[in-house]
């Protein structure tokens, strides 16, 4: 699905990613953990194509295409989805209008016909149920006046609507109470198939009680320094990151 090799990226001349390697295959869930400032959110931003970041070396192959050659919107249209850590508010633009515009842009890119209003509304009903999102929220302005939990659920709702090949969840668990966490995780699990893949970026192990990863990676100082299974997450929860830092820095 995606193969990242020797990725170096910097912002304002400061190098954040320093030779990152990662391969995710279809049907897999990968968790990326790591201490603050390790480069987790930078990785998400670079994958999505945020302009502030400059890729200085390395390559990203996304299902046979050179991801770094694509614009932000074309990456999305190729099936890359980023669930934002801090979803922005867009006043006056309804969630429905926003999603229909997005969906039709993606369809146009793929040479498909525009979705009919009826088909679209049926889809909204079906997908909003996955994250138990009140249908009223769907007609409200994008994220405007949403609670923290509603914003995160809305991200997963959008993911369900756009049906990406690869979803990157950037700290989706932050700020969620246990019920919201369960709902979000349930949404991600429901959407999982052998055709798509998920990268879960998180600070805490608790999300991984609900979303069971196939692999857990530790990102430290711009590189993946350790890879294991879900047991690694438990170990990190228990022992913290210091022992890893020490072994790397030594």
């Amino acid at each position: 699905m995606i193969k990242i090799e020797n990725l170096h990226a910097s912002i304002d001349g400061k190098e954040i990613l320093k030779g990152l390697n990662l391969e995710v295959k279809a049907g897999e869930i990968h968790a990326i953990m790591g201490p603050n400032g390790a480069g987790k959110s930078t990785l998400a931003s670079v994958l999505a194509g945020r302009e502030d970041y400059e890729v200085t070396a390395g390559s990203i192959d996304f299902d046979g295409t050179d991801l770094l050659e694509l614009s932000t919107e074309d990456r999305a249209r190729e099936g890359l989805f980023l669930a934002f850590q801090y979803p922005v508010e867009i006043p006056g633009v309804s969630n429905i209008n926003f999603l229909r515009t997005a969906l039709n842009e993606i369809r146009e890119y793929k040479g498909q016909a525009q979705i009919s209003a009826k088909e679209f509304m049926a889809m909204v009903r079906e997908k909003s149920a996955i994250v138990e999102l009140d249908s009223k929220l769907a007609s409200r302005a994008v994220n405007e006046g949403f609670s923290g939990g509603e914003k995160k659920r809305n991200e997963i709702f959008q993911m369900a609507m756009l049906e990406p090949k690869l979803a990157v969840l950037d700290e989706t668990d932050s700020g969620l109470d246990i019920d919201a966490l369960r709902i979000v995780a349930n949404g991600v699990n429901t959407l999982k198939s052998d055709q798509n893949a998920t990268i879960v970026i998180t600070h805490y192990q608790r999300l991984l009680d609900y979303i069971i990863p196939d692999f857990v990676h530790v990102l430290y100082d711009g590189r993946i320094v350790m890879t294991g299974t879900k047991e690694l997450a438990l170990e990190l929860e228990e022992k913290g990151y210091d022992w890893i830092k020490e072994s790397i820095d030594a």
Partner: protein
Amino acid sequence: MAGYTENELAKDLENQEYKFGFVTDIEADTVPIGLNEGIIRLISTKKNEPDWLLEYRLKAFAIWKEMTEPEWAHVHYQKPDFQAIAYYSAPKQTKKYESWDDVDPEMKETMKKLGISMEEQQRLTGVAVDFVMDSVSVATSFKEKLGELGVIFCSFSDAVQNHPDLVKKYMGSVVPMTDNFYAALNAAVFTDGSFCYIPKGVRCPMELSTYFRINAGGTGQFERTLVVADEGSYVSYLEGCTAPQRDENQLHAAVVELIAMDHAEIKYSTVQNWYPGDKEGKGGIFNFVTKRGMCESHAKISWTQVETGSAVTWKYPSCILKGDYSIGEFYSVAVTNNYQQADTGTKMIHLGKHTKSTIISKGISAGKSQNSYRGLVQINKAAHHARNFSQCDSLLMTDECGAHTFPYIECKNPTAKIEHEATTSKIGEDQLFYCMQRGISEEKAISLIVNGYCKEVLNQLPMEFAVEAQKLLAISLEGSVG
């Protein structure tokens, strides 16, 4: 990296061409340039006007000569040379059209380019259009149907000929010739415009619409609009404006007067898309317009405007809330780009008891433009329990543009309740990135965000106008983030 850099975007924006910049090659009957009594008499004679109107013009001219051009607005421009303008330009016609088929094909073509093909409008929307090219109204549709209800909707010249009593009674009653420099000039040299009268208790069944277009080079357009809504009547009036692309600055100094009698309601919507000048700030329309409405008791006047054009705009559609329980509303979107300057807003003059006014102003500045909101809320002594709510938002697209707000509040009655809210924001790169991460192109994203920002105002427009306004906003702002 993929995608635009800010500089590329700014460049892209400069290359946006004015979509309506074409000249129609129609033989015109133009008077010599310059302004003097002789010219005014000539205009009056050409229009076969009654003596009282000529006197009105001459009186206005005498007043205008004593006045100086106002300078308080936050705009800078080369003052027009009033002696270098031709004050009358009419498409050359010997006789009036018998039917729509008789209309000059080239003029029809112009209307088509404007996207307001008369046939189509008649068939699809049921909008009655009074089309004003330069100074003479060339075609008025739906007259018969309106006639059955007693609604008068015709060119100003026709009204002078056929309804002189109404014109004489109301013309200048809301905007007197002494009001300001441009109003006086208009009163002296106005050539045509629209007139509308809705009889008592009649709800006008269709939107009345006028399109203005400046065609001949070196001419000014001085039209006058007078809308009179008699007791308990209702009318929705639409006004659209475009002008061809020319290097010189053209002057547009219009006067619009609305009169809403007891329990009447007038909704007046404008989409203004005059040529704004090129990316260097050369050419474009000077749009100096006086618009004002008078509300009798329980009457309501709503001004809705979407202003995307003109090099310089100076315009304050206002309401005099004279009658008790009368309501004034002002909804505005003003977009400026490149070197455009807009100084626009409203005046709400509360005279009656329990009068209410609402002001929603959305300014959008791009390029190197300057966009000012200027508003006055005046609560007079007798206006017990008057209420006003004002909201003025400014959206900045670049670092080189400017947004200014000049709200004036004068309150002479302690029972008044006045609220004012103002915000300024820069279009969010985070918002754009969010949209683009969902697969939405940058241009569509800007259009979505801006339309969302203007929603409260766009919602006030009649459906077909709202669609046009949204497209205009998108055209005016394509690639304008920087």
